[in-house]
């Protein structure tokens, strides 16, 4: 555009343009005013093309449309009675469970407070203070190490969730032996977080005493006690919850829906595993400076004689004496007290500690039940610190009737991130903090959609990010957020931990009489499956499950 153009007066002076002037001037004016309007047409065309390209996302939204919005949190029953709790075992996990219940030591709360002062984005203090009151009171605690017991008393009395120098409530009573605690009248229910070799016995005794039970995993240490416990729990009619908090994970619930809808087709292989790479992850926990034979009740730590006999009977009869000990059971040793997970004498190894989480998540999603057979291999390859349980373990579970294999693969010496994978004929689902479905190029179910281009096989087709009510394919951004834990742990703008939700469910079931999500039948499946894997490792041969006789056999 020249200055000549923009100056209308100039053209009017041109003799030849005289007659056409009003028309051409008006047109020129209009053209100049509307010159950029066609750009909008280009935008519209671009948007149309872009939308068309995104059709496959819409297709996925339709295919993965779920009727129910999963809400992990229904309000507490309004007139629920206060439940009086006893805590059996207040070590690392026991303290975590108490915190999830809303009871932290003043020192713990103080630390959270200071952390918030130093970093205003650290909201753990606020979250803990605002966590819903579960209408419980801790009336009794039992731990055989004085320091742990005293911490549990302090936490139990900290009813207003205060830091140091706060106002505290009545202190729970400390019992030296858990059986004394179970005899107490002011205890309705118990949370058991003792070492593995005590799990079954304590839960059984609690049920017989009429106390409701929240039991940490794994459910049992020996095979025989697994049957006894199942019977005992069923006869007692108490509400039992096994501590697999994965039952509260939203992603798992969505995964179950996907399986139920048959979107993966026939599943033939499930891959799960554990990757950790630090001493703490390998159960080399710190030894408390105040720990000594005076502050620890070693006799009680040794275990229930009947259970120890079952353990020894199996180990000797199967020729596994090399896995027993090596220290005599009655010899006081701090390593064995604090790092008991490293020895079969108290532990269930990787099978009981970590495989059970993976198994229960898959059992939750796919109703797997007990496998038809199990074989294992592995060894003590990295943490050669005198432990008897392996730090590398691969266990293969066969579900012959279902036509599928579940592989568990673990190392405690590499933290490489592997997602759980459920591999189907039509699609594969990967589960981590998020859920991803990838359509198989050879899928028959999706053949038409692959052929007409609405599905691009081999590429992530569907993402589910918990905490967001978006069913369509979500952006890479949201995935990043979820993986960093920014999104999924917020429900109604509040952060929740899954252990809290799992305990909450148990307490609400006690009030309503309903069944828990990880009840004794699920627990039985968990325990037997883990024992099959363990025995396969120890004996170096395949273990079979005789479903009719309900027996582990050697085939």
């Amino acid at each position, binding site marked *: 555009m020249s200055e000549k153009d923009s*100056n209308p007066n100039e053209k009017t002076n041109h003799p030849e343009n005289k007659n056409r002037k009003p028309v051409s001037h008006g047109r020129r004016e209009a053209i*100049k005013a*509307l010159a950029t*309007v066609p750009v909008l047409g280009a935008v519209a065309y671009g*948007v149309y093309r872009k939308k068309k390209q995104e059709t496959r996302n819409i297709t996925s939204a339709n295919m993965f449309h779920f009727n129910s919005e999963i809400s992990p949190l229904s309000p507490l029953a309004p007139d629920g009675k206060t439940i009086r709790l006893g805590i059996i075992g207040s070590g690392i996990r026991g303290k975590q469970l108490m915190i999830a219940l809303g009871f932290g030591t003043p020192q713990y709360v103080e630390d959270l407070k200071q952390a918030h002062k130093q970093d205003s984005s650290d909201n753990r203090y606020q979250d803990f203070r605002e966590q819903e009151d579960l209408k419980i009171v801790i009336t009794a605690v039992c731990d055989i190490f004085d320091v742990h017991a005293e911490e549990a008393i302090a936490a139990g009395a900290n009813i207003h969730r205060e830091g140091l120098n706060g106002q505290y409530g009545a202190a729970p009573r400390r019992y030296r032996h858990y059986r004394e605690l179970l005899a107490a009248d002011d205890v309705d229910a118990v949370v058991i977080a003792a070492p593995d070799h005590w799990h079954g016995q304590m839960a059984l005794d609690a049920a017989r005493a009429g106390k409701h039970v929240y039991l940490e995993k794994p459910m049992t240490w020996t095979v025989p006690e697994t049957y006894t416990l199942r019977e005992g729990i069923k006869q007692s009619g108490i509400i039992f919850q096994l501590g697999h908090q994965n039952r509260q994970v939203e992603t798992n619930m969505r995964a179950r829906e996907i399986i139920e809808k048959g979107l993966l087709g026939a599943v033939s292989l499930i891959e799960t595993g554990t990757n950790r790479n630090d001493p703490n992850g390998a159960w080399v926990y710190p030894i408390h400076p105040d720990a000594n034979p005076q502050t620890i009740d070693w006799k009680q730590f040794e275990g229930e004689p009947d259970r120890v006999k079952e353990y020894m009977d199996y180990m000797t009869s199967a020729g596994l004496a090399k896995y027993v000990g090596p220290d005599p059971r009655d010899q006081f040793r701090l390593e064995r007290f604090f790092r008991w997970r490293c020895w079969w004498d108290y532990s269930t190894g990787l099978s009981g500690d970590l495989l059970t989480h993976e198994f229960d998540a898959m059992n939750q999603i796919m109703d797997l039940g007990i496998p038809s057979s199990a074989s294992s291999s592995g060894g003590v390859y990295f943490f050669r610190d005198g432990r008897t349980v392996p730090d590398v373990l691969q266990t293969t579970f066969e579900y012959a009737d279902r036509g599928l294999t579940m592989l568990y693969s673990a190392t405690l010496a590499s933290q490489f991130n592997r997602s759980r994978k459920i591999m189907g004929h039509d699609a594969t689902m990967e589960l981590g903090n998020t859920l991803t479905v990838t359509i198989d190029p050879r899928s028959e179910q999706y053949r038409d959609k692959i052929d007409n281009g609405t599905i691009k096989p081999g590429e992530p087709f569907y993402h589910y990010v918990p905490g967001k009510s978006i069913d*369509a394919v979500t952006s890479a951004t949201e995935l990043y*957020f979820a993986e960093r834990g*920014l999104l999924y742990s917020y429900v109604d703008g509040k952060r929740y931990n899954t252990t809290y939700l799992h305990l909450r469910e148990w307490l609400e079931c006690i009030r309503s009489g309903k069944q828990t999500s990880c009840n004794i039948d699920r627990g039985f499946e968990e325990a037997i499956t883990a024992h099959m894997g363990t025995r396969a490792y120890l004996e170096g041969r395949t273990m079979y499950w005789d479903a009719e006789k309900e027996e582990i056999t050697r085939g």
Partner: protein
Amino acid sequence: MINKQCNNSKGQVYSLLTLRVLIGWYFLYEGLAKVFTPKWTAYGYLMDSKGLFAPLYRMIAGNPDLMATADFINIWGLTLVGLLLILGLFEKAGYIGAALFLILYYLSHPPLLQATYLLPTEGSYLWVDKNLVMLAAVAVLFFFPTAKRIGLDRIIFKNKTK
């Protein structure tokens, strides 16, 4: 002479006009993309904020009412600014709107020395980022307007400019 714009050469006017339309396109599509994304929200973006104003942005994200308002303003504000710039309609208002958005985006994710962001995932920046560059471009357009030459403002402001 109609106005000061006449002093610009043809090349100047066309390059300024191109810049205006391109920035308009950018805003318009940013808005439309959100219009067409069901349940789009700036929640994640706000939560990812760092720097001096981060608490303010997180506060907005934490309040459902403010969050809804922020989403509405983003979706429709961006679309509106885009339309105004492309059409050359109420040009100056469009630039002010564009500048406000850019300042808010810059302050929510300032490219500080120690800051690392999840969003955006591309590019390397130190103190200066694309938002800031575009902000400067919008300032240039504000002081060298083109819509009264090419754009609907030509009709609207015809009487005034004569």
